[in-house]
């Protein structure tokens, strides 16, 4: 297929449903008098005013920076700990209840404790993001590591591929489809936690702005912020797809080829 056509198709797939939904929203909200659900038109006008301004640098940039650091932290911790726990049954059994305990604690309830240990600056916010986004990566990594094919595992052992080499050449690649699934989950959770972390002790940020708009009854502005969050998630997921396509090329190739799609 020629590249133009392929791009067209991709774009078509990506845009059809959003266009339908936006149209529906537009029509449904056109003459809305509901204070909390203003017409889409109002929201879109507001969107331009609010975000194509100083805010882009003052609020979006710090948020995205924290998000990037927090997400990276979550992936590193999640994969690292996940490999450890996935490979070591005893360690897993000892730590699982404690981890499950932490996993069930709502981040807003955790925040005061974090303030105690990490102060109220950006560190605490990054930790909030890590503390919530680490779980999908961790769980998926543990499961992926546990599910390494036994024949492959035996092969590695018999060739003396142990320790770090085993990790690099067997465990991580074998678990990568599941790790990637977890990383994808973590991406959107990071965005959510970015917002939550900015509900406390903040002076700037995208989430901070949304909450402030909400509190000061600036509803169209609030909606525009939610739209921006969605857009941010969408753009990041596109970037993620590029990453996934590169890092899991063998996996997608394998599936595709054996589905007879080439």
């Amino acid at each position, binding site marked *: 297929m020629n590249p133009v056509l392929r791009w067209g198709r991709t774009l078509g797939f990506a845009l059809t449903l959003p266009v339908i939904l936006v149209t529906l929203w537009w029509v449904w909200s056109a003459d809305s008098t509901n204070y909390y659900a203003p017409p889409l038109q109002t929201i879109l006008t507001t969107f331009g005013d609010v975000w194509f301004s100083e805010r882009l640098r003052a609020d979006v940039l710090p948020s995205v920076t924290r998000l990037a650091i927090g997400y990276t932290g979550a992936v590193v911790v999640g994969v690292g700990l996940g490999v450890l726990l996935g490979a070591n049954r005893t360690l897993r059994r000892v730590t699982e209840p404690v981890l499950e305990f932490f996993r069930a604690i709502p981040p807003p309830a955790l925040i005061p404790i974090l303030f105690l240990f990490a102060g109220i600056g950006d560190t605490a916010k990054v930790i909030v993001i890590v503390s919530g986004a680490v779980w999908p990566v961790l769980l998926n990594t543990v499961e992926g590591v546990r599910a390494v094919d036994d024949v492959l595992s*035996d092969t590695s052992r018999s060739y003396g591929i142990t320790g770090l080499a085993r990790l690099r050449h067997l465990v991580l690649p074998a678990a990568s489809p599941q790790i990637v699934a977890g990383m994808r989950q973590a991406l959107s959770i990071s965005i959510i936690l970015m917002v939550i972390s900015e509900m406390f002790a903040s002076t700037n940020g995208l989430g901070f702005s949304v909450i402030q708009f909400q509190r000061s009854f600036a509803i169209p502005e609030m909606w525009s912020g939610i739209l921006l969050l969605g857009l941010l998630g969408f753009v990041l997921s596109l970037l993620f797809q590029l990453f996934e396509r590169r890092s899991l090329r063998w996996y997608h*190739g394998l599936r595709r080829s054996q589905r007879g799609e080439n």
Partner: protein
Amino acid sequence: MTQPLLDVAGVQKTYTGSGRTVEAVRDLTFSVGDGELVCIVGPSGAGKTTLLKCIAGLLEPTAGTVTLAGARVDGPPEAMAVVFQEYGRSLYPWLTVEGNVELPLKQKKLDKARRRELVRDALEAVGLADVHSAYPWQLSGGMQQRVAIARAVAYEPKVLLMDEPFAAVDAQTRADLEDLIRSLWHKLGVTILFVTHDIDESVYLGQRVLVLSSSPTVIMEDLTIDLPDERTQLETRSSPRFADLRGHVYEQIQLAKHRKGDQHQRDEVATGSHRAGQPTVAADPGH
């Protein structure tokens, strides 16, 4: 026989779990000298793979010990290579053919040039020089199996365990690979344990052939192959001695198939010799 390198003593293996207990291997005792080439034949499900895994240190026997070069095996020993029966699953799908063959060499800390050379030679030897950059899943079954063989060959092991390594390749390739193994064996003095279903193959390849009984498994026969060391496909296979040995192993296998470890022992106690066990219900219900 040269000085014994590998010693399998009273190995027994029972699989338990999921409500099913199988005594796969009952009692195996034999030893293999340094630099020997031993073939193992036995009915499907006899426990050949199980035995190989125990020797490779991948599975712990329920009872008995495996001793290699004087030390008890309790983990994969150094300088041993294994070609697994499930060849497809033993290749790393995320590595190319070349990468698969090279990986163990990296682990051996060989330098790049040497690795290159070994990989190239091994792939050429199995007739896959032109697919080095393909992924395993882009290859046919037989090609995958040959990649697994190339990996073991390139590794230059002291001990080589092969579990039906030629099952998926055609007759001609098989003959070539048989000769490859024998030439390697001559050149490197490597000790080889070779599991096969093909009786001709076992006789052609081995210095000794071990015939296993049905599961629970014991050794039915430990046959020395007294064919000349220099073997060629055409001549050796058409020699009368080859036919004799072949016939003998065939008989034993047929016996083995219908005889389990327990019967075998019972028989021995009762009559002091082998007797054909009762045939199973299997096979050819149409007639």
